[in-house]
């Protein structure tokens, strides 16, 4: 399905079996070395801040859910560099056009913020099943609607994923 939709790497939860071209999303960093590539995902705001120093502050990806709260707090606090800020499309499907319009405005601001703070903006489908997935071409159209150049976006995202996987030790079998 992913190949049909022109998506090279999928992000999904780990269910005990490693598959090709999948980057696993974990809530916590595993204690031991894994045989699969992963990123640590969180929606807790404190992990986003550079002032939060802890052994557990290994979050790679922050899920943006409350845009207003995030926008208000991002201006105040210093954000850790190279962290990914993820926004999902799935929640938008049931919202009215007014909310979608606002979302696009938020996306523009978050993208600008990411550019300024050396963070990675990530647009995700937020799909729970195959029929909720979004094709690569549709992603590009939504990015263009948000005034984001798709080519730059894909290049930056590829680099970011490469860096995350490079710095992380996992036994490649």
């Amino acid at each position: 399905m992913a190949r049909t939709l022109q998506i090279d790497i999928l992000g999904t939860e780990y269910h005990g079996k490693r598959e090709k071209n999948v980057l696993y999303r974990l809530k916590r960093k595993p204690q031991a070395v894994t045989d699969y590539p992963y990123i640590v995902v969180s929606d807790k705001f404190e992990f986003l801040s550079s002032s939060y120093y802890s052994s557990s502050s290994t979050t790679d990806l922050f899920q943006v859910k409350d845009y207003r709260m995030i926008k208000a707090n991002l201006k105040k606090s210093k954000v850790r560099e190279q962290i990914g800020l993820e926004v999902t499309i799935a929640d938008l499907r049931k919202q009215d056009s007014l909310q979608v319009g606002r979302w696009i405005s938020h996306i523009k601001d978050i993208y600008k913020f990411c550019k300024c703070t050396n963070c990675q903006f990530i647009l995700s489908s937020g799909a729970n099943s195959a029929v909720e997935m979004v094709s690569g071409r549709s992603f590009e159209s939504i990015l263009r609607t948000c005034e984001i150049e798709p080519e730059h976006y894909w290049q930056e995202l590829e680099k970011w994923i490469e860096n995350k996987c490079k710095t992380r030790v996992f036994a490649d079998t």
Partner: protein
Amino acid sequence: MQILNRRDRRRYLAVLCSTKSNDDIGFINLIKKRNSELFGHIANEKSSIRLVYSDKNKNIIIISCKLQNVDNVLSAIALTSSPLVVLDMSGTLKRLKRRLLESSE
């Protein structure tokens, strides 16, 4: 005398529908409604979204729209309330059908 080609260029989109329905027009109306809400009635009319073909066994419909509005239509499809997935896109119906056949094999 040179004759100008006044035909608009179109794109054909293969869309996977999430639910089985005999009402293909219902899906088209859903896409048109969202497109109209997001980009306006005029842009929606200019998009000229049409149902071209429907495969009820595979839950796939093929729609066409004008090339200049294809970004709007793709965004509208991704943001419809009933999940619809754009499987492929092509400039000709023949090529799109061939690619769908290849990917299903």
